[in-house]
């Protein structure tokens, strides 16, 4: 009881024992869904032809992030199993899926939706007209208004979508990589290694996530790269503990025993038998994490520890109007658009991932079904 309750917040391989019951078979994803293959080819085409690349790519990490998200979601959606069949019937997951797909489309079409001014060095820097200090309301040419010092909100929100995906995917990737290595070492070998790794995660979990991220970015300095490092440092212990707990339960299963009896080595057992069985719970946590990461990144930017001034980033957009939020005496809502528009976008992004994560979890863990 206690073990699975803890899993909600931040901890180890708790709900995994239940998941095992549902997914207790070693298998890899055999069928590559045609749709993701198509998108993958399209992505490669864009990357290879120089003209298109100039126009659309702009930031190599973005393309990577884009492809990862598309393939992961489409792949998960299209895998033939009763799991995904249920996923496609669940209204919550459909809503979440739709929201995320819309965001993906916006991110991919950013150069079309909000064309950067010709000749800009970096399209991620929001263009601004003049330096008038106070935000100005929506008007022709600036459909969502401008922030303090005249950065265009619409442009920032559209290109900020790419930033959000980049931050989320890079951080999840680093966290999963670190968690995978340390978690499997700890779980598989146990003993002293396990003890050391678990004490290290204890140290990282001794901070509320935001506090550790604030401290790390403060020391490393401003900038999106540092934000990503900071959030990944906060995030990996969760994955390490998850995998460790999982391996502990998988280790004694008959099929691992069988593989060992057939002479399989440690690495082979870990990669072929243990990790494939842990991949679904990982997906659940990663889906939730995508939203949480963007939330933390936005909070850091809001505090003034995130992206550089003028960089297309949702938290940044709010930060740039921070001293104007209160409006003027008599009209408190004068500058409402500076908070509401970026706020709604962040909210929808996080909501989309939460809905997806919830749907995955509902389906994977029958005991929690319908428990939101």
């Amino acid at each position, binding site marked *: 009881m*206690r073990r699975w309750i803890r899993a*909600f917040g931040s901890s180890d391989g708790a709900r995994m024992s239940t998941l095992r019951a549902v997914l207790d078979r070693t298998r890899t994803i055999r069928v590559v869904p045609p749709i993701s293959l198509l998108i993958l080819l399209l992505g490669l085409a864009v990357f290879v032809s120089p003209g298109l690349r100039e126009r659309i790519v702009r930031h190599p990490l973005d393309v990577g992030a884009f492809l990862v998200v598309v393939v992961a979601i489409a792949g998960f959606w299209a895998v033939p199993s009763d799991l995904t069949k249920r996923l496609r019937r669940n209204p919550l997951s459909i809503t979440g899926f739709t929201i995320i797909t819309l965001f993906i489309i916006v991110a991919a079409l950013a150069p079309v939706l909000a064309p950067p001014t010709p000749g800009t060095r970096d399209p991620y820097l929001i263009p601004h007209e003049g330096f008038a200090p106070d935000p100005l309301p929506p008007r022709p040419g600036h459909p969502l208004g401008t922030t303090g010092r005249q950065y265009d909100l619409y442009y920032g929100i559209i290109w900020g979508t790419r930033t959000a995906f980049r931050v989320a995917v890079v951080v999840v990737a680093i966290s999963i990589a670190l968690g995978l290595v340390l978690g499997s070492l700890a779980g598989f070998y146990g003993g002293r290694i396990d003890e050391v790794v678990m*004490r290290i995660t204890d140290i990282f979990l001794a901070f509320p996530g*935001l506090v550790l991220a604030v*401290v790390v970015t403060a*020391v490393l300095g401003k900038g999106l790269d540092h934000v990503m490092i900071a959030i990944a440092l906060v995030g990996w212990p969760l994955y390490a503990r998850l995998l460790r707990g999982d391996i502990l339960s998988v280790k004694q299963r008959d099929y691992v025993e069988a593989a060992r009896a057939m002479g399989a080595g440690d690495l082979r057992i870990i990669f072929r038998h243990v990790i494939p069985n842990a991949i679904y719970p990982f997906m659940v946590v990663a889906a939730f994490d995508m939203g949480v990461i963007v939330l933390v990144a936005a909070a850091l930017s*809001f505090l003034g*520890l995130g992206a550089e001034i003028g960089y297309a980033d949702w938290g940044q957009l709010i930060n740039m109007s921070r001293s104007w939020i209160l409006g003027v005496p008599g009209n408190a809502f004068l500058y409402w658009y500076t908070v509401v528009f970026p706020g709604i976008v*962040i909210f929808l992004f996080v909501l989309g991932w939460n809905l997806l994560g919830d749907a995955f979890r509902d389906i994977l863990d029958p005991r929690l079904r*319908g428990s939101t």
Partner: protein
Amino acid sequence: MTAYVARRLLILPLVAFGVTILIFALLQFLTPEERAALFITDPRQFGQIQGIIRKYGLDQPVHVQYWSWLKQLAHGDFGWSQTARMRTAEAIGAFFPATLELTIYMFIPIILTGLWLGTKAAVHKDRFVDHFSRFFAISLRGLPSFVWGLIVLMIFYGWLNWFPPGRLSLEADQFVHLSGEFRVYTRLMTVDALLNGQFWIFLDALRHMAGPILTLVLVEMALLVRITRSSMLEVLRQDYVRTARAKGLDEDVVIMKHARRNALIPVITLTSLLFVGLLGGVVLAETIFNFPGIGKWGAEAAVQLDVPGVTGFAMFIAIVTVLGNLAADVLYAAVDPRIRLQ
């Protein structure tokens, strides 16, 4: 029970030691020159930066530096915090009571409403209350607390002028700090106000805390509602609940006495998570509402690279978090005998 608590207590110094290593490692990302600049109090000293590096041993091998830094910490000497304009240890002492008070006042509505809504949802499963609470919990978890905080600030301060930012209004502040008639007992403003018999100061302090409270309560409550609901659902399926119903007990008695008491056990674990969440959340809420607590100071120190301030803030929060988790674990084992056996 004693063994369990002892085991948990043994881990505590280990984690504290690890936290110092982590923070020291982070500080190594700054160059000796950058760290030396922290000891400069006068622009004229910039010429002697090499002298400062030597004086404070900033060019020594890492383990020597770590050892001397650790000795410094052991004496409670975190250095001078530029943002607080006082010694870091004093700053923690000055700011933490305000945050503690805020956190306590947040806990009460979160626990009460969360439990109430969670129980209601479980008892009326698949009815309106249930759907409402699930929708509520799902959407609130996506709500960025700082955006919600700014909206609260706009509505309740800018428009209605109900919940002003800060900790006290001007008159109350003058009375507390300058009149000499106000005695400080606990440093928790509302408690002190009542002990002094100054009811208006109590109300004033409460009014200033309402903004941050409203901001975080809504965001943090979602989790509690969800856990209470699922825990209640599980308990309601148990045999003893069926027995209680079969005995012909009143439904309210069954729910309150037989089901909810047992459903509360996992909720106790959650309170430690809630506490950690609130400690992180106050950084944003206090910054938005200009509430002079430890979170606002920590954020300011981080933005202005006040390294002694950031270090002290991080260490202190880490220790409070670990103690909070420990308290929850011990409480949990005390309530539920089954845990101790594991």
